[in-house]
């Protein structure tokens, strides 16, 4: 079965993120995108607007030396929603992160991400990594 176009979109967006091509990555989001990061750590919370989420990405990049990588394991999509189960790895000083993160997206008719949820399988490990 051919991949749904929105699954292809998510695959491309992750690859753009992994390359660190921020200008290209910005194009995947609506201006008023809302971004939900679960957990109890300094980066958790609800981010509103593209500028706010890119400040969050910059913090993530600065804390991990640009080394956070996302490796998709399974991508699911329909015409208005998508999701990816991805192995996320990163290093920060002597801390190592290796979790499965589920990223769920609401996708608008123009193929832009309008809302996003991030759910980690091991939230305690994520909390410890960012705290």
């Amino acid at each position, binding site marked *: 079965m051919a991949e749904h176009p929105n699954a292809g979109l998510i695959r491309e967006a992750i690859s753009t993120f992994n390359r660190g091509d921020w200008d290209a990555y910005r194009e995947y989001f609506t201006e008023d995108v*809302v971004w*939900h990061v*679960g*957990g*109890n750590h300094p980066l*958790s*919370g*609800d981010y509103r607007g593209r500028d706010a989420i890119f400040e969050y990405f910059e913090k993530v990049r600065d804390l991990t030396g640009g080394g956070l990588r996302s490796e998709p394991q*399974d991508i*699911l*999509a*329909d015409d*208005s*929603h*998508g*999701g990816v*189960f991805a192995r996320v790895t990163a290093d920060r000083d002597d801390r190592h992160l290796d979790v499965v993160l*589920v990223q*769920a997206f*609401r996708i608008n008719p123009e193929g832009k991400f309008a*809302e996003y*949820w*991030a*759910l980690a*399988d091991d*939230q305690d490990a994520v909390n410890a990594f960012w705290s």
Partner: protein
Amino acid sequence: MTEHPNAAAARRSYEAWNSGDLDVIREYFTDDAVLHLAGNNARSGTYRGRDAVMDALARDIQGWGPHAEVETILGSDHHVIVFCRITCERDGKTLDVVLTEAIKFNAEGKVTEAWALSNDQRGYEQFYS
């Protein structure tokens, strides 16, 4: 396009949730299933084993079970993601959030692990505090 069997199973479990039929939901979990309830409130935590999972769900549903309105269910051979609107009223407080739930399925079509996140974490904490 017909719905993936795992997506259809998730849809039936949400229907059972709305009708308060926990016995039906119980059948979807493996013996060693794990449920993660996100957040920092009375119900947050990781529940391990089917009995612990069902105890956590039973606490939720007793008396004031939140209603779940499914927006979309995405399914593959190993995973499901549910987008649903959850509404509930309790003690003069109103909950109205969009929740995403991620579910892992084994080869027998049983749920081994599930976790959820709301789109309004502050509202969620206030409701459940």
